[in-house]
């Protein structure tokens, strides 16, 4: 009955590799997000999708490419991994209520990525 799930939980890989992180939510939400938490615990939004459409794209290298096959899934593909990509990546979801009304974001357990 997990609300927001991510796979894998841990990911250790070499520089230059390409990897993907998957996120799924069973809350029926229409908006999903990716956040990056660095080694100092600072959380920053990367992307947001609403109904499979990209709505927020912060200044993120184009090596990062999100893909939303449907409203319940938002995957993150990272090409040519670099040491600085090491972080915890959190997926989140919420329901857009329209006309400025916002619903709470629910977070997944995080994916700990270590690039060697």
């Amino acid at each position, binding site marked *: 009955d997990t609300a927001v799930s991510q796979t894998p939980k841990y990911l250790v890989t070499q520089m230059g590799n390409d990897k993907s992180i998957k996120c799924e939510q069973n809350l029926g939400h229409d*908006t999903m*997000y990716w956040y990056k938490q660095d080694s*100092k*615990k*600072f*959380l*920053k*939004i990367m992307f*947001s999708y*609403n109904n499979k459409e990209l*709505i*927020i794209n912060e200044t993120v290298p184009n090596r990062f490419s999100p893909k939303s096959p449907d409203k319940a899934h938002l995957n993150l593909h990272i090409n040519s991994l670099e040491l600085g990509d090491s972080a915890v990546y*959190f997926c989140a979801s*919420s329901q*857009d209520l329209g006309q*400025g009304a*916002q*619903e*709470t*974001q*629910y*977070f*997944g*357990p*995080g994916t700990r990525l270590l690039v060697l």
Partner: protein
Amino acid sequence: AQSVSQHNHHVILSEAASLELGCNYSYGGTVNLFWYVQYPGQHLQLLLKYFSGDPLVKGIKGFEAEFIKSKFSFNLRKPSVQWSDTAEYFCAVSPNTGFQKLVFGTGTRLLVSP
């Protein structure tokens, strides 16, 4: 663009002590305000949120926060902390219009000693 400041980076308290964590934000418009908690090794969980109405908001586990619009602040309080409150606490703000885009503060690490 909005920003969030959490002035206390590390706080150490004894059990039963009172807690107040500061949060100030910078944004020209109406905002929604949140406090999230991250227990060691776990994901973020919502403690409480303010969207509108009564500026004193009560959340889970005995936490509350007060929105003071004139001070752009949303401080988190708990009258008596427990060892299990040891965690990282994040204040976040989102504009009240458009799609929700949470901007987080840098977090406050709370250590409660038994």
